């Protein structure tokens, strides 16, 4: 059982608070991604779990054990570093065997385990080579092999793919997903790449300034961001944000955005009635805006500024009144810059955020945040 629990963990470096009293529960065998921009504290959090950083306050639990005062060697973890940290003065085989040697596993067993894991990662022919003779991708596999040969309860990965080129990264992503099923370890994966996070994670913990702002499944983080930051950080392109004023009419609450009006999601009616004439932030994703080439009554007129063909879609930058939006649409429709198009917004696809805190407005009245 390798559940990981962080209980009000805090880590400061001098005056900078890197990890701010975070509480996190990671289920046994879960693949959790710590996602956030640089400096948000994700790597520090990982290192606190590893034992490479001593927490200033709070406790760390792995399984049922309180490991807060234990060195990394005694925590039952294995780690893959961003730079791979493959020992240059040892062969690949010796690298992989290192951890097992530290545990005084008998030589025969070591040999077998090394061979097995090398085959799993398809690096059997490289066993007698030295790291200097390997490519970056190969070294990365060695680093992963070295970690999983330990059959750890907890596998920690610090941006393991960030130094690979785009194609290799894609390949390795799929491989890591496959490996996770095989090795059955609780995995904590740090990245700043939200695409990686969405693809790999069973759950994602989005971090900002040392705190976890949302901890949810990838789908929910994408569709129901807890605040403006998450909405803007996740998704390519980021969520569109507009300022709107709540107007109460006979048909219910409406959102005034510049010259046009949007119909808000039905479940937030009650909440909006309490915010009459106040400002809210409207968030809508590029692919959730429908494009009509002919004028329609429910549509909002907009002018196309830039057309970016992206292969499977086109990404349009359009101007609506004073706002500029990104809209994604099919690739087989011919659209020119300068052209006028009409945008349709459906209420279920709109998200509303508090104008001051940036937190998402939730259906239950009086409660904010995720």
């Amino acid at each position, binding site marked *: 059982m390798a559940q990981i629990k962080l209980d009000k963990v805090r880590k400061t470096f001098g005056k900078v608070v890197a990890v701010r009293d975070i509480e996190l529960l990671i289920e046994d065998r879960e693949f959790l991604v710590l996602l956030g921009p640089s400096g948000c504290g994700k790597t520090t959090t990982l290192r606190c779990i*590893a*034992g*490479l950083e001593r927490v200033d306050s709070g406790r760390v639990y792995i399984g049922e054990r309180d490991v807060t005062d234990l*060195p*990394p*060697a005694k925590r039952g*973890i*294995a*780690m893959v*570093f*961003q*730079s791979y*940290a493959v*020992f*240059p*003065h040892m062969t690949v085989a010796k690298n992989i065997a*290192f*951890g097992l040697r*530290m*545990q005084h596993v008998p030589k025969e067993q070591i040999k077998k385990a090394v061979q097995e894991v090398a085959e799993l990662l398809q690096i059997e022919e490289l066993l007698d080579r030295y790291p200097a003779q390997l490519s970056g991708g190969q070294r990365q596999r060695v680093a992963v092999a*070295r970690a999983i040969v*330990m059959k750890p309860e907890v596998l*920690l990965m610090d941006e393991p793919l960030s130094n690979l080129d785009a194609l290799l990264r894609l390949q390795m992503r799929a491989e890591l997903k496959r490996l996770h099923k095989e090795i059955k370890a609780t995995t904590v994966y740090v990245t700043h790449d939200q695409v990686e996070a969405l693809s790999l994670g069973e759950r994602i913990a989005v971090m900002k300034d040392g705190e976890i702002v949302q901890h949810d499944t990838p789908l929910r983080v994408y569709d129901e961001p807890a605040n403006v930051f998450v909405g803007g950080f996740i998704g390519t392109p980021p969520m569109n944000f507009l300022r709107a004023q709540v107007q109460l009419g006979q048909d219910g609450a409406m959102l005034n955005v510049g010259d046009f009006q949007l119909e808000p999601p039905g479940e937030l009616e009650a909440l909006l009635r309490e915010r009459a004439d106040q400002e809210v932030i409207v968030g809508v994703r590029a692919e959730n805006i429908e494009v009509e080439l002919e004028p329609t009554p429910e549509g909002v007129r907009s002018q196309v500024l830039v057309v970016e063909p992206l292969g499977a879609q086109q990404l349009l930058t359009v101007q609506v009144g004073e706002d500029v939006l990104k809209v994604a649409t099919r690739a087989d429709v011919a659209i020119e810059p300068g052209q006028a198009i009409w945008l349709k917004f459906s209420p279920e696809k709109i998200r509303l955020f508090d104008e001051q805190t940036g937190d998402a407005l939730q259906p239950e009245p009086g409660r904010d945040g995720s």
Partner: protein
Amino acid sequence: MSMRRLWGKLLLYGVVAAISLWVLVPLVLIGLASFTPREEIYRWPKPFLPSRFSTETMSFFLGAHGVLPSTLNSIWVALLTIGFTLAIGAPAGYALARFVFRGREAFRLGILITKMFPIPLLAIPLIVTFIKWGIYDTLLGVAFIHTAMALPFAVLITTSIFVGVPRDLEESAMTLGCSRLGAFLRVVLPLALPGLAAAAMFTFVVSWNEVFAAAILTLSNRTLPAQILTSLEVSPVYFKFAGGFFMILPALIFMFFMRRYLLQMWGVAAER
């Protein structure tokens, strides 16, 4: 190639050649002088190349009173110095390379300040201290002061050596089951070894060359430089030639082996 560029290149190589000769020629000369047969040493005018190469001069020098024992003494002192310096300095270098702690800058500053202490200021009082401790006129005493002189350099050099070993290699070893010490011995040390070897050779050269303290702190157990210095007034010319060459020899050999680390070390050691 334009005339201008040609002149430029000529000038460049000309200057390079001139400076190279300036450095090399004296070395070659003393080498030649040391292998000139005895009769020709006093010959004048001196031809550049001796009529025959002979080891007479060198063997006379080596056989002269006190030379061989003092050479042995120099070697002993240098070895002791290396041992002390690395044993004391390498941990400090590691601490400076890996940890951020209060007092770090103060320590660094302290190291730099030691450069302002002139050797006479250190050596003279130590006469009194060493007599009190009973190590005046011993090799140990000289090794102690040589260690003191080499220590600041050693700390700076080992710091840069350990900085050159990436921290995550150690951390990786620790996640694989090593204690901090284990990680140091199994991962850091093997990778730092070439640098440490260079640091050791550097220390050897410093100790081998040191004159003032060695001359002051020894009477009968002289090191080679001390021996040569104290006999300068009475020593014949051949002694001076051969002595000079003999003193240069180990340094030349070590410099050859260390050349890759040369700039890194001396540059680091001498910089603020």
